[in-house]
């Protein structure tokens, strides 16, 4: 019997050697790293903002699969194996099941990172899910990307739209939130050669770019929230970060006025990027243009924790204003 099927079958009586567990964890890591490397560049830039390498993101993505419950079982894997239809009977099916489980886990982890990186992304994502649940639609994972499709149209038999092409769809399709999915799917069917499927993360980015204010809704009243101006929200976040900078780091002598000046400029650039799709690159790159000959070693020693903390404050203020 092969290693994957044997592992899945042993989930029932929970009887593994640690060599077998190691093998499955290493395979899962390799699959996760592969999926991360296939993610489109725009998303890669956002999730790499904290300069955490892909290897560590891959490990973080698979880690929840290998937590044990009180009965000492790998309960997530066990439940998935039990509920998988059709049931897995061969080594080949077992490897495909592992591949599918890891693809879904990586996609969930990427969404989590995008939400953490960008409070607007998180809020729009929630709103999309709210409208999604009201429709006769499904989500499917196809080669590592989650798409929204019609329930009667689940069999992908044409090319799927690429993120850049999705970004170029007419803005008018994204205005009416109640007809959002219908309008996009009809447009894809009638005006393009693509299969009617909407990549969720690309949809969130597109909405944020053109229509965030209208889309951030109060789920109870279905009305746009009062705080709809992105500019205002980001400005609030920026102010709170600058307050912390001046009233803590400068007033306590932890940073000089000259250092506070380049931190302020870097924070303003970060706020601009938050408005325009999220923080785009490592935080060192925000400080580097304004500080004189800042080395990476100095940055890590003196400034990294501070700039990360200030960004957290900015995002937290925006998130609180949105909720």
């Amino acid at each position, binding site marked *: 019997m092969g290693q994957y099927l044997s592992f899945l079958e042993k989930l029932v009586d929970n009887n593994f050697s640690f*060599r077998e567990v190691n*093998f499955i964890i290493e395979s899962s890591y390799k699959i996760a790293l592969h999926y991360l*490397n296939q993610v489109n560049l725009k998303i890669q830039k956002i999730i790499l903002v904290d300069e955490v390498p892909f290897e560590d993101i891959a*490990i973080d993505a698979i880690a929840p699969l290998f937590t044990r419950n009180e009965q000492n079982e790998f309960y997530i894997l066990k439940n998935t194996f039990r509920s998988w239809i059709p049931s897995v009977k061969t080594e080949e099916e077992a490897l495909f099941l592992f*591949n599918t489980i890891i693809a879904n886990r990586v996609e969930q982890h990427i969404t989590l990172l995008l939400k953490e990186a960008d409070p607007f992304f998180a809020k729009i994502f929630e709103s999309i899910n709210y409208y999604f649940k009201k429709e006769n639609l499904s989500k499917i994972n196809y080669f590592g990307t989650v798409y929204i499709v019609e329930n009667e149209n689940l069999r*992908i038999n*044409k090319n799927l739209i690429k993120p850049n092409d999705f970004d170029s769809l007419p803005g008018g399709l994204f205005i009416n939130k109640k007809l959002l999915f219908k309008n996009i799917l009809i447009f894809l069917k009638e005006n393009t050669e693509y299969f009617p499927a909407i990549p969720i993360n690309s949809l969130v980015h597109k909405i944020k770019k053109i229509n965030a204010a209208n889309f951030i809704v109060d789920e109870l009243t279905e009305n746009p929230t009062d705080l709809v101006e992105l500019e205002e929200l980001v400005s609030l976040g920026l102010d709170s970060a600058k307050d912390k900078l001046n009233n803590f780091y400068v007033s306590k002598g932890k940073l000089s006025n000259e250092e506070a000046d380049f931190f302020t400029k870097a924070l303003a650039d970060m706020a601009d990027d938050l408005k325009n799709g999220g923080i785009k690159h490592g935080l060192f790159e925000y400080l580097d243009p304004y500080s004189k000959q800042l080395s990476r070693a100095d940055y890590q020693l003196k400034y990294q924790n501070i700039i990360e903390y200030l960004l957290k404050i900015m995002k937290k203020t925006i998130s609180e204003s949105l909720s």
Partner: protein
Amino acid sequence: MHESEYITENDIFNYVFFRYLLKQEKIHSIEQNSMYVENVEFYTNLKKRFIRDIPQEIKKRISDKIAQYRPINKVLLTLIKEESVKKKKDFLVLAADSPKEEPRISSRTFVNEENGYLIKLINLRNSERIFVFSAFEKVLRNYKIILHPSGKSFFQSDNSIPLEIDYKIEVDNIELEFE
């Protein structure tokens, strides 16, 4: 589209990993339709990643974050079985001849059950042959075989051929150390 022509992600996966599972018409559809080129490449890249080893430094980071992962680089195998095999005489011994020493072959088996390793040590008259097997990996790569009590160690880049030592050596147990 006819059912037999419909290609799923699982079909593309099988095309790359287990082509023998696909009917010829599906293989033909995948190979003739340019829409599947990127998809095939996707899983081809995954297949290549499977055969790459994970660096030790990454294994350490996995073990830091996943408690269930315990990378091992040393495994001790202990003796479980010892067999002597007398070589069959294929010549006539005359009564006047002085008794000759018979060539003897003996075999000893060392295992580490928990980790699925087995080593067969074949003692020839003046040499040793060591065969290394794993229940979990088809090919073992880059490891040292350390023979105790002497502590003598021998490097092997893989286990496709046995280690040959051209002298006799005492062995009580054997350690495998992976790079």
